[in-house]
């Protein structure tokens, strides 16, 4: 039983995820199929990209930091992305940027984001800062700092530019920014290819720095590479639907519980499938049963926040 558990869990979750996707495409469709399918297909693709990006980035981040409480969002990664978007508009003006097109802009923002997070977070995670609570505190302060800086600049900015920015920030699960879908998909594929080549090292990295070095990994280099991959994934999900602070924490920790094995070969697919089920399934339920609008992120944040508090409490009790 214990031996087959990962397979059983994977099969069940895959079926659930497929059912959710099929339902998302078909439930309550009233118009022409030729309109409904592409229209919903684009939104589904965006939700799938977000689910994948959030699940993979959170699990890998927790692997390289060897803890199960910190996530990129809690450490302020998505706030940093928003700040970079603001700074870019602040510095160059929206009219100038509009001529570049959303895809070029996205690539530029991701590149700046990777450079900055490599600088900021590498020293933070390199082992110089000890203790989970200190890291958590630094992360929360980073997040607040980035958000405040973005707010400040948004107040100083030209009103026209502000309107453009605001439009970009109002991304949510209902108003997905689908114009960068192709570029985001490409980024996710590139990250996955790079990640696939490192796949066997993930289980060893999870053992901690000293064990990883003893077992022959170039620990410092690998941590930097994985951090870049995580940063790109966070940028993708933030650009598509905006910040989702606790969603990654929720799916990653559910995945550790359900997978029945610490191997990344099991945990990563389980986390991705769980994220798909939560996002796509949740979206269907809220859209068709409750006719709510932006409530999905509220529900997810609520559940994720409770998970976060429970994890913190159980950690202190131990």
């Amino acid at each position: 039983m214990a031996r087959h558990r990962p397979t059983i869990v994977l099969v069940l979750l895959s079926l659930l995820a497929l059912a959710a996707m099929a339902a998302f495409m078909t439930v309550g469709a009233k118009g022409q199929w030729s309109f409904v399918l592409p229209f919903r297909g684009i939104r589904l693709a965006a939700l799938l990209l977000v689910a994948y990006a959030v699940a993979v980035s959170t699990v890998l981040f927790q692997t390289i930091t060897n803890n199960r409480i910190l996530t990129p969002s809690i450490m302020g990664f998505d706030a940093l992305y928003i700040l970079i978007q603001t700074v870019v508009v602040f510095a160059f003006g929206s009219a100038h940027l509009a001529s570049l097109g959303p895809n070029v802009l996205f690539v530029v923002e991701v590149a700046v984001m990777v450079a900055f997070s490599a600088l900021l977070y590498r020293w933070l995670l390199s082992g110089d800062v000890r203790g989970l609570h200190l890291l958590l505190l630094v992360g929360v302060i980073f997040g607040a700092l980035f958000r405040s800086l973005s707010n400040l600049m948004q107040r100083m900015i030209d009103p026209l530019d502000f309107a453009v920015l605001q439009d970009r920030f109002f991304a949510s699960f209902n108003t997905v920014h689908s114009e960068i879908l192709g570029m985001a998909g490409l980024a996710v594929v590139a990250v996955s290819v790079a990640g696939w080549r490192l796949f066997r090292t993930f289980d060893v990295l999870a053992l901690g720095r000293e064990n990883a070095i003893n077992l022959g990994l170039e620990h410092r280099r690998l941590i930097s590479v994985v951090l870049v991959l995580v940063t790109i994934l966070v940028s993708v999900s933030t650009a598509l639907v905006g910040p989702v602070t606790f969603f990654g924490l929720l799916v990653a920790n559910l995945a550790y519980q359900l997978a029945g094995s610490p191997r990344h070969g099991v945990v990563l697919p389980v986390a991705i499938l769980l994220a798909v089920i939560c996002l796509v399934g949740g979206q269907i339920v809220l859209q068709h049963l409750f006719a709510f609008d932006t409530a999905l992120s509220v529900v997810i944040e609520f559940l994720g926040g409770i998970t976060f508090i429970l994890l913190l409490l159980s950690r202190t009790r131990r």
Partner: protein
Amino acid sequence: MIEIENVSKAYGRSVVVDGVTLTLPSRGITSIIGPNGAGKSTLLSMVSRLLPMDRGHVRVDGLDIADAASDVLARRLSILRQDNSISVRLTVRELVTFGRYPHSKGRPTAADREHVERALGYLGLDGLADRFLDELSGGQRQRAFVAMVLCQDTDYMLLDEPLNNLDMKHAVSMMQLLRGAADEFGKTVVLVLHDINFASCYSDHIVAMRDGRVIHQGSPEALIRPDVLAEIYDLDIAVETIGGRPIGIYYLGSGSARRQQMPGPNG
């Protein structure tokens, strides 16, 4: 042969390891002894590339550990630290299988699995192989980590206080196991030990450190002597020969040392 050349490490202004030059012979057991804070663990961490050094060089079989590829080193040299906590929930067998990673790169073959079972057997962990690490006692967990290092099958094994958490019986069988690894398989074992008598009974070579420097080295007979030990530990230690081995009797301490270490209420 491990050549340590003028290696230093300082944290801020406090120098922990101060220009140590030392050659650790191949084969056999070398024990590093010394009081707390002598720099033993720090030296071992630098030799095993876990800790960058401020100055100096370490060469393992002529390979400079600063330039050599980490995975090449991982097939020659393994290290076990004192405190091993892992955030992932693993069974004993899963942990020990990681010891084969430098050879199998994550795809264990039948030969690798054989290594794992043999290492589990050596450390008497057969019955515990499918238990999770967090369900074990400190001593059992310590043995699981030693099994992982053993499984790595390197010529050099560096162990920082491997007898931590072990009761007398398991401490003795651990030392016998390491002695066997040195004698039968030609391994080079380097240990940090606190119990001078284990060092005396099982080592070929003893290195004594104090205040970041190597102050004595030599055979157990040359080091386990009252005058030498007093210099190392600041403690009068009587030495008796029991079964042909010098054994230090340190439990009673000495008047002068006790006064120094236990200041009165006025400081």
